[in-house]
């Protein structure tokens, strides 16, 4: 689960004022969570992380191997390389590192979002984020 449309709206509203960083926290009980994370990083290797990221959110939960390769093709990626990457779990270590970070930080849900370190657990309306971000921007001006 991700806060797809909300995050998009945040990035559009606060253009140039926000840096977005993604950590993978695929849930062990979902069928395609891991392979989808692999797919996003495989696309990153070919310079199209954010395109794939957006597409995965849009097409979720249709995230089986064949569909993922289809998305790679759609984005004009080298599908052979892409397929080899997800089949070989090339980024497993990276993903495991993120997962360990999540459990070390006592994160139990996705999406969990940190805004300058302030934790927001689960889905929230845009206005909720807006309030926090506005506070952060105001604080920044003070110092």
């Amino acid at each position, binding site marked *: *689960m991700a806060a797809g449309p909300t995050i998009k709206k945040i990035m559009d509203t606060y253009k140039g004022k926000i840096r977005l960083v993604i950590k993978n926290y695929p*849930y062990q*009980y*979902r069928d395609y969570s891991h392979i989808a994370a692999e797919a996003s990083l495989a696309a990153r290797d070919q310079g199209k992380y954010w395109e794939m990221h957006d597409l995965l959110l849009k097409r979720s939960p249709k995230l089986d191997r064949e569909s993922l390769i289809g998305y790679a093709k759609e984005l004009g990626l080298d599908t052979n390389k892409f397929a080899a990457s997800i089949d070989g779990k090339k980024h497993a270590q990276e993903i495991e590192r993120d997962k360990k970070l999540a*459990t070390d930080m*006592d994160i*139990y*849900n*996705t999406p969990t979002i940190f805004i300058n370190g302030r*934790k927001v*657990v*689960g*889905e*929230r*309306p845009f206005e*909720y984020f807006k309030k926090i971000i506005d506070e952060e921007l105001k604080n920044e001006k003070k110092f």
Partner: protein
Amino acid sequence: MRRNSESEALISNHMQRACHHGEKISIIDDTNDERLTNSTYKTEAEDVVHGPRMVRDIRVTAPRSGLCMSGISDRSARALLRPWFALTAVFTALIFSMAPLGAFAGDLEPFNAVPVPEQNPQTPEKIELGKKLFFDRRLSGDGTMSCATCHDPDHGFSDGLDISLSYPTTRNWRNSPTLLNVAFQKYLFHDGRAKTLEEQALFPMMSAFEMNRNLDFVEEVIRSVPEYVDAFQRVFGGEVTRERMAMAIAAFERTLVSRNTPLDRYLKGDKKALSDDAKKGLALFREKGRCAECHYGFSLSDDKFYALFVPENPEHESDPRIDITIRFVAKVYHYDEYRTLTEDPGRYLITKDKKDWKAFRTPTLLDISRTAPYMHNGIFPTLDDVIEFFDKGGGKGNAVLKPLELSTKEKQYLKTFLVEALTGEPVVIEYPKLP
């Protein structure tokens, strides 16, 4: 799915009713029947579960006894439901609502002890197990939520939203109440539909618009985790059951207490614990502001229900998902016109008593500065709004409150009291490592 949680809620209602009337539920312990050994509740009237009127006659078929546990654990609450007590309660409430100035103002009390039911004693291991379950998203249907999603330690065990978002694609209809001091509550939920934490804990899990988890299924999910199986064995000397899950979660929740508030120290004799302004606020709280008429005792709640007619939350109008929730709950509680219901009837849904129309439970005020927004529908973002509402004599047409005519200064003192005197030491949670 919906049908399942609905029937579960119906069964739960029925059991509750039967327990409270001291009746015996007909439980068929049919462990020879293979179809039933997987801990499946079956209702003989399953075909008519949608027909509200039939519920009384549903016989509950369950593989295990001990289902009344939660009901029995609170004798006084049970007694309240007996007709003569109920009559007295109605009478008292009537007097209450008409009483002139402070006639029934209750006393503020310092912290003494956390009430713990005999049937579910606290042990460190049980609390730890309950804490793990509390944070575990296995308890929700699609693994997106845990209890902590809407009862977040960082938000005073609430979620900071006026109305919780709840299960994806659904919407709750009320504000997530804080869990701080729930151990002291005689009624749980804004409408008091549960009387013990053990009983309460399962509701959100199976509720279609909260965690949407089938309880039969979640038992199997937890049984599939060896660490949990071991922990239940150690804590309860037996296997994972929904009742034990609820008991463990309740045990954890009883540890969430607002400790060492300045008011508490003050009531214990430390006259310096409150600033002068807070002391003025306390006097207003007890007298002119008439707050202590309902907010008294340690947790500052009389555990009663009042229709103050707070303004409706506009989201009830604008979010069609809330309509679905309203109708669903009304249906489960046999409200005849549930299909056309558009507002929140409050405790009326539970009691069908006219005086309970739009009545909600008096909440605790301890740690109130940590649990904004306020009221059952989160309509007031700040304590200033709340004080303003009470000063004006509550919502239009209510028969409970009268205008207070507090001066600006007095409102400030009152707020100082609420913020300064009622804020306890932060409840520090050591987050568990989940299996």
